[in-house]
């Protein structure tokens, strides 16, 4: 009995460890604590190191307005100046197109899995296919789109082709997270809606999806964050341009990962090295902004009832 009284407030306290245990057990406990803290420290070292590298080497270019408003046109690896506007826009445009294509399919697919197909063979087949899609490495997705878009249709390499490859990568992420969120919607809500005679589609649109909305948005943002940092599809499916090109259907297009890839070949030169780390930091900040946005949206739209 006393043990409970003593231990209960001590989830995060240390005085608990030493009270009345045998030597070996106390030792094991201390050892485990040490190991766990050590794991934490070991993990932190490289992670902080990477972030520190990127931030310390990349922040100063980000402070200039040019970085956010100019392209790299005419700026060679030996010269300073220019910005990442072309690459930021390219990344955002491709991400936006990806989202526009992937999100409806993913959400509707999840609705199918949770609301319509539940338990049927067809649903299991779809679920299985989603698993396969989850396992597609980005390079394979890029090869597939290359085979279709360029080898078979004979189109040019354009930003849109990259978006198509990214759809393949984003679709399963969003579909799975949406599915999980829809499953969390209590059946009572659906039943109440049905009991009022609301047709199923309206129940889904007005009750189920809004209830899970915050979670769905979070999933979308995380999916976007995932695909924005992808390099392999960009290497294979679109040429890099230092110039501003906002048309995803024509011409080469800059993007942050390919901007890094372009300048990383000249890391011995200071201007190029600066741009590499700054572009990396910009990409991380964009993804961070999306994550914050997702949290914000989730907070605004979460339904408190459970």
């Amino acid at each position, binding site marked *: 009995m006393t043990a409970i009284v003593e231990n209960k407030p001590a989830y995060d306290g240390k005085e608990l460890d030493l009270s*009345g*245990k045998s030597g070996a057990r106390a030792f094991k406990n201390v050892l485990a604590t040490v190991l766990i803290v050590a794991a934490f420290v070991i993990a932190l070292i490289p992670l902080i190191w990477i972030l520190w590298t990127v931030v310390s080497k990349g922040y100063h270019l980000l402070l200039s307005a040019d970085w956010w408003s100019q392209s790299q046109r005419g700026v060679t690896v030996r010269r300073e100046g220019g910005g990442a506007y072309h690459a930021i826009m390219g990344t955002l445009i491709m991400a936006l197109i990806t989202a526009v294509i992937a999100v409806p399919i993913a959400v509707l697919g999840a609705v199918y899995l949770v609301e319509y197909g539940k338990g049927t063979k067809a649903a299991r087949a779809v679920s299985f296919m989603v698993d396969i899609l989850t396992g597609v490495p980005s390079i394979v997705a890029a090869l597939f789109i290359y085979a279709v878009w360029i080898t078979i249709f004979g189109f040019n390499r354009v930003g849109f082709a990259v978006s198509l490859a990214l759809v393949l990568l984003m679709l399963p992420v969003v579909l799975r997270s949406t599915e999980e969120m829809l499953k969390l919607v209590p059946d009572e809500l659906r039943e109440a809606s049905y009991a009022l005679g609301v047709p199923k589609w309206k129940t889904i649109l007005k009750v189920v999806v809004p209830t899970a909305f915050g979670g769905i948005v979070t999933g979308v943002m995380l999916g976007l964050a995932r695909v924005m940092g992808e390099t392999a599809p960009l290497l294979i499916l679109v040429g890099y341009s230092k110039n501003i090109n906002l048309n995803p259907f024509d011409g080469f297009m800059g993007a942050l990962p390919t901007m890094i890839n372009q300048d990383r070949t000249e890391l011995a030169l200071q201007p190029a090295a600066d741009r590499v780390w700054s572009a990396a930091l910009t990409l991380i900040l964009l993804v961070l902004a999306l994550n914050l946005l997702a949290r914000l949206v989730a907070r605004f739209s979460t339904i408190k009832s459970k």
Partner: protein
Amino acid sequence: MSSPDGTEPPDRPAEPAASGGEPRIEDVVDTTGPAAVHFETLTDENDDGRPAAPEPEESKKKLDLGPVGHLGDRLFSGLAHGSGGLVVVIVAFVGIFLLALAIPSLADNNTSFLFSRVWEPGGSDPKFGIAALFYTTIISSIIAMLIAVPIAIGVALFVTYYAPRRIATPVAHAVDLLAAVPSIVYGLWGLLFFAPILLPVINGLSAALGWIPLFEKPIGDNVGVIFTISVVLAIMILPVVTAISREIFAQTPIAHREGALALGSTKWEMIRMAVLPYGRSGVTSAAMLGLGRALGETVAVMIILTVPNGNDPWNSSIFAGGETFASKIANNAAEFDTPEKTGAFIAAGLVLFVVTFLVNSAARLIVARSAPGAKRPRRNRRATEGASV
């Protein structure tokens, strides 16, 4: 994803078996009046429901008229089914296209695709096999896992049960942020800053364990080796594995934890007896997801790993260079100048695809079989709850 109160297991039956009551209700709604289609006159049924104001009225009408809206239902159900079908079609397309492109090359291949280590596609005597690629891909990912998973578990335990909340939350967010660092940055960092400091580690390990072929170091001070890439991959997958493990550990039912403590166990014993068993399957699946990511990692591997030349005898040591499927494809993507050559690389991509898929399905299988959270809806599994601990 995470419920703020970690103690209640989410009430979501992962298995279709638990869906007992619901379809019946749907059936009732769906099938009561198939003949009532001619009531389908309400135009606002057909739009997507944006006008919010008439909503209550609408429902009243519906109550009066009985179940209507079959057109809307059909449309929406069609869309949903269509999307599900589209996923199937997409995956089938991916598979068929890749196979179609790979098969002619495979047919022309003059050596064993699975067991040869030669890679000379194209030309008049195409020879290519994936044995070396397969070995490097698998061994680097497995070592990455061996390093990352214990550390990730440690970090997850630290964040959930050891650190004060003031520290835990920012740390958790910081680790999440690292998942956002693009892989090319990991690659550059690994090449420029991290690999050089690994040289003493490599020398030490090979001095101690060099009698095992796996740890035998070839001459020279090359740090662009499988071991280096394994460590970098471990760092890359650490955030993912940590994030998932953290969520799982946080969901350990409070009753289990308090029960263990009440029996006088130390904190470690509580974790070993309550938290770890509860989280085992979740952590396994997290590890598998990390493994999947490590297998498919492209740019970081391509930047760091050195490629052995074709003349030296093949070296199985982790202190030698190598090529993974993804790095091989990406490194040679610029030279896909003939369909035969392209096909050979696509065939390699297919193998990677299959391997990654197997890993992912293994993860899902493990979760489905023994996930405590998924299998224990409060309502009807109470009886089994105690037994499984």
